């Protein structure tokens, strides 16, 4: 059965985030987040995702290298987008990610006080990725760069749980139709299945959020429809997981989220980043 490979230190998997850093990411979200800039919301989401990934792999003795992680930004330029000590690195073992945030900020979160109330608790919020909003949207180039990194990864890890590529954008590629570059990524394979390409579309339109649709009917514009079409169909295990998290992921649901609030995006991405058992 595809997408069932055990993820272990001996057989790690890989995540690749592609982040739109174009000028339009400086605009506000269309849904749910008040006047927050898309670039700020996406940076928070990526940092939270990286944090969740590190926590999934943390054990008593430290962080186990179940995953290697890459972050590619695309805007004025296309390339690795980690800030701080990891700047310039393409794929980084998750233990190094966990031990090398650019900085750790103090934030607060609301938690139950155990007596029916809510209290604010200070938490450490590690930051690896800073918001950028500048230049065009060279999405095809970014997909091409991800493909070449993943080809090398797959030649070294031929039996891994297939790598997952998560592209976060506000829509229109400025370097041509990304369909061909996306197809090339989805054609890459390990013995456990094809590389999964998920797309998160953060639009400034005031349109209804859509998560894990199985058809492009109802998507408001050609860019959303294009991103839907280049997204992988969710493997059945992930579709089931999405259902248990309350998403309406029917058969043929794709790894595509449109205009969701950042909380939804984090939930959706968590599904993409929670494959089978890690040992």
């Amino acid at each position: 059965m595809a997408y069932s490979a055990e993820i272990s230190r001996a057989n790690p998997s890989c995540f690749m985030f592609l982040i739109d850093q174009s000028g339009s990411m400086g605009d506000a979200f269309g849904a749910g987040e008040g006047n927050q800039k898309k670039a700020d919301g996406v940076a928070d989401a990526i940092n939270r995702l990286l944090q969740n990934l590190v926590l999934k792999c943390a054990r008593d003795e430290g962080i186990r290298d179940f995953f290697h992680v890459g972050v590619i930004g695309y805007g004025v330029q296309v390339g690795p987008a980690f800030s701080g000590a990891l700047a310039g690195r393409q794929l980084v073992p998750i233990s190094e990610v966990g031990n090398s945030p650019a900085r750790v900020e103090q934030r607060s979160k609301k938690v139950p006080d155990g007596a029916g109330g809510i209290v604010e608790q200070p938490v450490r919020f590690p930051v690896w990725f800073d918001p950028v909003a500048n230049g065009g949207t060279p999405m095809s180039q970014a997909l091409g760069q991800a493909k070449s990194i993943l080809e090398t990864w797959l030649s070294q890890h031929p039996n891994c749980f297939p790598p997952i590529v998560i592209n976060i954008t506000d829509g229109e590629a400025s370097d041509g139709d990304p369909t061909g570059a996306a197809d090339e990524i989805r054609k890459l394979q390990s013995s456990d299945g094809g590389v999964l390409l998920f797309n998160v579309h953060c639009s400034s339109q005031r349109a209804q959020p859509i998560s894990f649709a199985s058809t492009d009917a109802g998507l408001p514009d050609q860019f959303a429809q294009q991103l839907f079409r280049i997204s992988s169909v969710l493997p059945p295990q992930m579709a089931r997981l999405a259902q248990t998290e309350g998403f309406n992921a029917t058969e043929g649901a794709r790894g595509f989220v449109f205009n969701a609030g950042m909380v939804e995006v984090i939930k959706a991405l968590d599904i993409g980043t929670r494959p089978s058992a890690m040992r």
Partner: protein
Amino acid sequence: MEIYAKDFFLPKRGNTEAEYDDSFSSAKDKTRFAVADGATEASFSREWAKQLVRAFTAKKLSIPIALDELKPLQSKWQKFVHRHPLPWYAEEKANTGAFAAFVGVEFLEDAQESLKIWRATAVGDSCLVQVRANEVIEAFPLAHSTSFGNRPNLLSSTPNSNESIAEFVMQCGGFWRCEDAFFLMTDALACWFFQELEQGNKPWTILRDLDTQGSVSFQKFIDDLRFEGRIKNDDATLMRIDIMP
């Protein structure tokens, strides 16, 4: 009549013994036995599982377990975890707490009344099976292979995470007699046991003979099951309790 117990354990394939997150314990007077399965995705679960089984066999936990009795163990766990400064991720994991499934059994004997009673308590998917005269006469708290899911109810090392666990603290009891055998198992082995039972096999005959002369070792037995895909690659723990004449 004597109660004789033997324990067997094996970490997940690919993990070292230091990464084994189950735990087991026997009371010195051989009246109480327990196994616990620390949740691997949490941190410091091995320590939590160890504290639970030791507290039970030291009779510091009741049957059924009362949540208030966990408080001293939770404080002890907190002290253990924070004995050194922690990096951000370890601190975050420690705040979430450790989790464990648990099953413990006690054997009581009233010589005057000639009553031999056992009582057990469990949370989650670690199981007890009682075998008499070549038949399973009790399975607790689960009794079928399809009852094992990915999200069992677990005892937590943080009180906030235990708020709704009270309704999942199970208890069971019965009579014991000479030549009965009891098996305490963590989930992977228990699930295999019930699958075998459902296919009309007698899995206790294999467990009964493990590590005896001329029989297969626990390690080889589990390795073979894993190789054949008949058992989940998880920590495997067995306590075999025999009532000998």
